């Protein structure tokens, strides 16, 4: 078992004929992901890496039984693409697209909540269940099947930590890049609950960064609900206030969203916090030895 996706999951790619869509469809297929359809309006009937392209999500779903959409369309078109995916009844929509205006993101997430559709992202690397299914742009080669669930606001930082874990022989159950924007679909809390309920996952690595209060809220939840060990890492201890650090969501404003506040919240919740990424390995090794809280 794994979280949200597995080797049976059928995926369609919106924006499959664009550069990003084309490249990553190839990589996902190579990884073994079941990409069953692509969608680009007006290009129905074409093929990309042997995957048939349809004009609408509705048709692609009807013809192939896809239940998950991975969106690669440009920022200003993502709202439309997401609504189309929701309307067609996708169960999970993974939005890789970066630079979506926040006014659109609010609408996307609101509509997803109304319809109880799961959204990962926007502005995220996607989700991977190593050895089974990769949706998004994670470099699959870095990951190994195993027992550690990972949740992260950052793409390459996830790869960094996954790499050290894999190198140390510690595999991952599922890794979810929740995205670096201020408004996102599944957050730390929702993903923590998923991993808590997943029998395959024995420990959870949570990678946060400056900006917002999602980490503080996650710490609250861990204290109350999460039975499995959680190891946290927070990026941005040296980030200056008031400056956006790449991600739209990574900004300390009005004294809120500092790394210190997040580290403190986790420590208050008895969550081990790694000072540096490579320390995660040792903390995970320690944690897995402990019996699970009941």
């Amino acid at each position, binding site marked *: 078992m794994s979280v949200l996706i597995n080797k049976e999951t059928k995926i369609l790619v919106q924006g499959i004929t664009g550069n990003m869509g084309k490249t990553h469809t190839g990589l996902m297929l190579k990884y073994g992901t079941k990409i069953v359809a692509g969608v680009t309006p007006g290009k129905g009937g074409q093929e990309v890496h042997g995957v048939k392209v349809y004009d609408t999500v509705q048709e692609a779903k009807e013809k192939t039984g896809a239940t998950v959409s991975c969106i690669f369309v440009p920022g200003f078109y993502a709202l439309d693409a997401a609504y189309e995916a929701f309307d067609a009844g996708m169960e999970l929509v993974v939005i890789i697209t970066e630079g979506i205006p926040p006014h659109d993101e609010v609408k996307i997430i609101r509509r997803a909540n109304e319809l109880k559709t799961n959204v990962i992202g926007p502005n995220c690397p996607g989700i991977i269940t190593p050895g089974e299914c990769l949706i998004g742009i994670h470099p699959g080669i870095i990951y190994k099947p195993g027992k550690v669930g990972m949740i992260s606001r*950052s793409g*390459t930082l996830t790869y960094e930590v996954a790499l050290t874990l894999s190198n140390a022989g510690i595999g991952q159950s599922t890794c979810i890049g929740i995205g670096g924007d201020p408004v996102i679909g599944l957050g730390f809390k929702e993903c923590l609950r998923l991993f808590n309920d997943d029998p395959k996952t024995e420990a959870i690595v949570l990678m946060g*960064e400056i900006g917002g209060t999602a980490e503080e809220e996650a710490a609250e939840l861990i204290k109350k609900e999460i039975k499995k060990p959680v190891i946290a890492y927070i990026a941005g201890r040296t980030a200056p206030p008031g400056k956006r650090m790449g991600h739209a969501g990574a900004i300390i404003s009005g004294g809120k969203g500092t790394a210190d506040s997040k580290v403190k919240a986790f420590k208050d919740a008895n969550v081990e916090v790694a000072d*540096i990424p490579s320390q995660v390995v040792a903390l995970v090794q320690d944690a897995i030895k402990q019996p699970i809280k009941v």
Partner: protein
Amino acid sequence: MKLFEFEAKTIMGSIGIPVPKGQIIKVAEEVFNLKLQYPVVIKCQVQSGGRGKAGGVKFADNLDETYEIAKKLLGLEINGIKTSSLLIEPKTDIEKELYVAITLDRGRKSHILLGSSEGGVEIESSDSVKIIPVQTEYKPYLGRKLAKSMGLSESKLNMVSEIINKLYSLYENYDLDLAEINPLVFTKDGKILALDGKMTVNDDAIDRQPFFQGWEINHLTDVSERELKAKIAGLNLVELKGKIGIICNGAGLTMATMDLVKKYGGEPANFLDVGGGADEGRVKRALKLVADNPNVKIILVNILGGITACDEVAKALKTFAVENVDKKVVVRLLGNNQEKAAEIMKGTGIKSIDNLDMAVKEAVALGGKV
């Protein structure tokens, strides 16, 4: 993109939010063309907060005073930013100051209205601020709810809620991150007036806002020259005080690398994220921007990615090493085509250290220590 006060007020005025009639000057002598009644208020047009404290707002009773003040204020540095224009307006007789604003609440995943019946500086963090979330489409009753929660009643309730309706239409139509009036005042003669206004246009949405096309560069006043260049080149650069220049892919990894530099005894000179899938040209531009910072003693390049082609990065590094023999570079380069990259870098003296901690320690050791 943060707008200047006078721009925000012009836009507010255009949809019927009452603002004082003011004039903008860029040269002190322009005060001789003023068509305003005295006393006036003279306000430095800078995007930084704390303008009042820094002496950037003055009152004058006549032309001579205005001229003297204008001469002093033009060029005044406020939090490191030089004043290049002044807004001059008739002084308002204030009966009561309020605060209203609209912004995005990350936690709620919705837009929120904020309001307080106390205006003025640092109100944002005051307990008196009331919040009304906009759970679905904005409708005027939300403005009334906010005005009510601010303790307003009778005609004042309607006047303020009408202002909020208009402010929301700007917020929505212009893709704003923030629309704020502080203070919004009732004057002694019973009118309502937006005395100061802030508007921030969302950076990811600005390309679909034709009204603001071409405005961006003029509004990047709080960044260094190199940060401005980076922005134009589509690179995320934030400069800091340290000696170790940093080039990474991905915002989280860049921050983590900065943190590691600090952890191992160095100080980062910057945040620079080249993004995913950077090619040779992009990495070259990044190297140049970081190297141009005179504080930078050593450059730490940390690229980890599935899709970033390491050979492209290596080509940029090779060219850079040839052209800048005096600049030290420490590289950590993992991912697609990393063997090709190693081949390219052979003989350049640049060595790639696979382990991130080792790479950072090396950079600190090679001259980055505080």
